[in-house]
């Protein structure tokens, strides 16, 4: 038995085709970079760091991309890698993608999220402020906190708690929009609506919430949902498509009550 954890010393060389765009209004183009002897234990973003270090060494401008926690929980990293948001790995963000997923001699294409609602800021960085605006339209509960309540005053079943928690794991990265042929934000919205709809604390404002958030989404230029399911297939947090059914149900109920 070889001891587990013996990470290998293998490294690969490949071509990197990266989208470069000076700003929102400039014309973009692909630039090709040769990457040599990158250890397969390198994460995708660390590989981008290596590229940028090389570019800076040559006096050139580095590739702009979003990143922050690099442990898959902040939702900042994006990157459309070889036609997939967050690359070929499932249930993982770009920062959790490792170079062992690629082969020596590959050509790896890296693009920004492409959606009318997410304009490019520079290179691979897009403006995802639209998601913040949807959240601000109703993605919260408002109540006076007052004194701390006794524990277990509002019983919640484990099923409901688990499902609300699963919806709440949405990190708002925008991969669902990037994956969707219509540029729809329905999976994101449905996760945000579901995490509250499933819990008693969220019921009080449920009707107002779903109408306001949906109206905001439409206003910001996201496309419509045709139930293709690419969003759920590409979601790094495995947000389920059934959330969209719940969103539709919540919306119809809210409209009927008008």
């Amino acid at each position: 038995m070889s001891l587990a954890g013996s990470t290998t010393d293998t490294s690969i060389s490949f071509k990197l085709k990266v989208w470069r765009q000076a700003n929102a209004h400039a014309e973009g183009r692909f630039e090709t970079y040769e990457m040599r002897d990158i250890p397969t234990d390198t994460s995708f973003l660390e590989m981008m760091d290596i590229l940028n270090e090389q570019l800076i060494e040559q006096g050139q401008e580095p590739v702009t991309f979003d990143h922050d926690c690099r442990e898959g929980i902040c939702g900042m990293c994006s990157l459309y890698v070889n036609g997939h948001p967050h690359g070929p790995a499932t249930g993982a963000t770009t920062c959790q993608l490792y170079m062992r997923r690629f082969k020596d001699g590959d050509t790896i294409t890296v693009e920004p999220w492409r959606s009318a609602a997410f304009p490019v800021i520079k290179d691979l960085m897009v403006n995802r402020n639209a998601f913040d605006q949807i959240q601000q339209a109703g993605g919260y509960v408002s109540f006076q906190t007052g004194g701390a309540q006794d524990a277990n005053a509002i019983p919640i079943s484990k099923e409901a708690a688990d499902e609300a928690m699963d919806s709440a794991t949405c990190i708002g990265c925008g991969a669902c929009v990037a994956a969707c042929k219509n540029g729809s934000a329905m999976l994101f919205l449905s996760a945000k609506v579901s995490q509250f709809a499933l819990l008693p604390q969220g019921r009080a404002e449920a009707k107002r919430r779903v109408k306001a958030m949906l109206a905001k989404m439409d206003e910001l230029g996201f496309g419509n949902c045709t139930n293709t399911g690419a969003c759920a297939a590409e979601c790094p947090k495995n947000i389920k498509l059934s959330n969209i059914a719940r969103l539709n149900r919540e919306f119809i109920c809210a409209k009927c009550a008008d």
Partner: protein
Amino acid sequence: MPRDVASRAAKERCDKGFGVNNTGKAVFLDFSEAINRLGIDVIRQRYGNLFDMYEEITDVNPGELANEINGVKYYNPMMIYPAIHYTMGGIWVDYELQTSIKGLFAIGECNFSDHGANRLGASALMQGLADGYFVLPYTIQNYLSDQISVPRFSTESVEFDEAEKKVQANLDHLMGIQGKRSVDSIHKELGNVMWDYVGMARTKESLETALEKLKALRKEFETNLFIPGTQEGMNIELDKAFRLRDFITMGELIAYDALNRHESCGGHFREEHQTEEGEAKRDDENFFYVACWKYNGYKYKLQT
């Protein structure tokens, strides 16, 4: 076992050359006993997310049987190594969570108010919620109620001009250095200095060395930095440079404070001050206080 003790033990083994993995910077964490006792389903329910993340990073599934010797099942061990994750302490605030700058409030993890000497799980989340839900809604109006009679400032005033000039001078300085080092390369060096000399176990000598190295690093930053591109529009290197300058200041501050505190306490472990069992030896007689340092250019003044 407290995380500081576990972390120091892991680092000690690696420093002595007993580390596993091709870098030598890891020790094994073995779940076999727990899996054999509770079953893989229970363990997966507790740590499934962690196992999945680990597999994505290393290509090894810790829930997978590795070997069976004399009827005892052994599962793939995980390679672990301590890493800096959190800073105990933060921006000084009063009981209303207002900083020393009037009208500027600091809430959540960034202020010092609820931190102890050691990090407790989920304390950052707890503090964000507590400050936001329970404190700020009852304190910020004390400030705001006085503001209603204050007329709007004009941006034409001298103070605005001076602030703008200062920021512009700062930008011009950083963009004008045109040296040889990237922001990231200096940032990495800073990380190594902090890890090696101001890390989980410190000594008087290591902290003094750190302060010297940090002084040199600041000089390197201010004289040999290279930021490509221009000031206009998005420039991530310029953005990072401003933050790195703050990180160097922060690093110096941590080293000064650690040097000044002649005791071990929580996450601050001075090798000179330990019990026979290797636990932190406190000196409450002399150090039973929260240290507060005041920014004064690049000089620091202790207020207790």
